[in-house]
């Protein structure tokens, strides 16, 4: 039950405790934050179980961990460790270019990234219990998360408007490559049937508030906290900003004197093969 919460990337017990203390609703246990994964290059894989277990022991809030797209054996390992949620994530190097994990075969819930309604519904059909925007991880640049959130919102509006038009819904179902029943249900709900978080490039309290105002149910903050000058303060400020996302006065207060945020990357300078969001459609 993570709604209206902030989920923070952490790489050790110390960071996990800072996140818990700041009011995070969950932590994502990693061996490196996305900015460092990007820098390191090579193949990025599931974290060492030892790293994950140490973090699980350090905090009582839920602990999530990432596996590679399509790598169901990594997911089996994470389920065995007893993590609270698995992120089938484009931040890691995909293990399968054709298939995502058949998440219905697992008892642990999954979160998956999506750039548009089609991707979101395909992941839900595969069994995802939570969706997040992909954004462009490790950049500290919110532009891609905004693009993905707006795109899903726009497509959702169009779907809701046509909820009585079975021809339209059938067309969409075949475009999205999902059963028409799921499209119909989504059209009637007027929102995704699972929670939709913002992720990928969120670096400041105002970024979190922006995503919440665009309709996110909560936010993931990856490199934004522990790559900033003052992680304790940033973590707390982002939690506050997520709760008071529509109160500019509070946002001004929590943003004041925070110090240097993580250094960002302009996403237009990334070559296509450096863009993590293109992974796993």
């Amino acid at each position, binding site marked *: 039950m*993570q709604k209206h919460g902030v989920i923070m990337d952490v790489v050790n017990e110390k960071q996990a405790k800072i996140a818990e203390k700041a009011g*995070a609703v969950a932590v994502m246990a990693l061996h490196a934050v996305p900015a460092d994964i990007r820098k390191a290059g090579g193949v990025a894989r599931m974290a060492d179980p030892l790293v994950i277990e140490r973090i699980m022991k350090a905090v009582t809030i839920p602990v999530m961990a990432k596996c590679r797209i399509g790598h169901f054996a990594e997911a089996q390992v994470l389920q065995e460790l007893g993590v609270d949620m698995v992120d089938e994530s484009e931040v890691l190097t995909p293990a399968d270019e054709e298939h995502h994990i058949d998440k219905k075969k697992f008892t642990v819930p999954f979160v998956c990234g999506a750039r548009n309604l089609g991707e979101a519904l395909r992941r839900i059909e595969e069994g995802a219990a939570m969706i997040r925007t992909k954004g462009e991880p490790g950049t500290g640049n919110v532009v891609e998360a905004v693009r993905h959130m707006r795109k899903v919102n726009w497509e959702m509006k169009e779907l809701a408007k046509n909820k009585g038009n079975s021809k339209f819904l059938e067309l969409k179902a075949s475009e999205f490559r999902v059963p028409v029943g799921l499209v119909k249900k989504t059209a009637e709900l007027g929102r995704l049937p699972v929670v939709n978080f913002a992720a990928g490039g969120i670096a400041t309290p105002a970024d979190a508030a922006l995503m919440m105002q665009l309709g996110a149910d909560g936010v993931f903050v990856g490199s934004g906290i522990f790559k900033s000058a003052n992680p304790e303060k940033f973590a707390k400020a982002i939690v506050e900003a997520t709760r008071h996302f529509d109160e500019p006065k509070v946002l001004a207060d929590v943003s004041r004197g925070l110090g240097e945020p993580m250094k960002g990357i302009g996403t237009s300078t990334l070559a296509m093969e450096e863009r993590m969001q293109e992974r796993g459609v």
Partner: protein
Amino acid sequence: MLRIGVLGLQGDVEEHMEMLRRLSATPVWVKDLQSFKGVQALVIPGGESTTIGKLMEETGLLEEVRKKARGGKGMPVFGTCAGAILLAKSAGKQQKQTGQKLLELVDMQVDRNAFGRQRESFEAEVEIQLEGNKKKKLKMNVPFIRAPVIEKVSGNCRAIATFENRIVAAQEGNLLAACFHPELTEDTRLHEYFLEKVRRQRTPATATPLL
């Protein structure tokens, strides 16, 4: 019209608000002392109890709710899942380990994540024994998500529902605690029961300005 606050610091706030709207009450999103003013009752949603407790303390709501609802004779409060944990007097070992903040209003001890971590989430039928009428039982199909259980009740607190011989709902006067999530179902009956309590509450804890 009943003005019912829903603690909106974190968790499934909208689901409770929607339930209350369906029952013709006016839900109020409570995130600080200001928005808590003028509500006749409070619902504490499911979420992460560590997070909600911490934020309640920071906003001053922990102390204020405690004051208004003390003894089960003041403001009616309904907590589900994390909300039930927050209502408890104690949360056992884990609480000491983490310094979990609690309202300490209901004379019960809870055990967090008693059914295991997230993978142990499930749906089950529970039978709830309502107050007043011995024969009146509520059968509901409800989801349990990383659910706590109530290890023991004492004083004026009574167990009102069990599942597999463990207590999953309790009541002490105007305070209602459920380890499951009725707000995630279409079944509004437990919320209705709570609202009846609010209506019967003759001395509202706060004057209610009509906005």
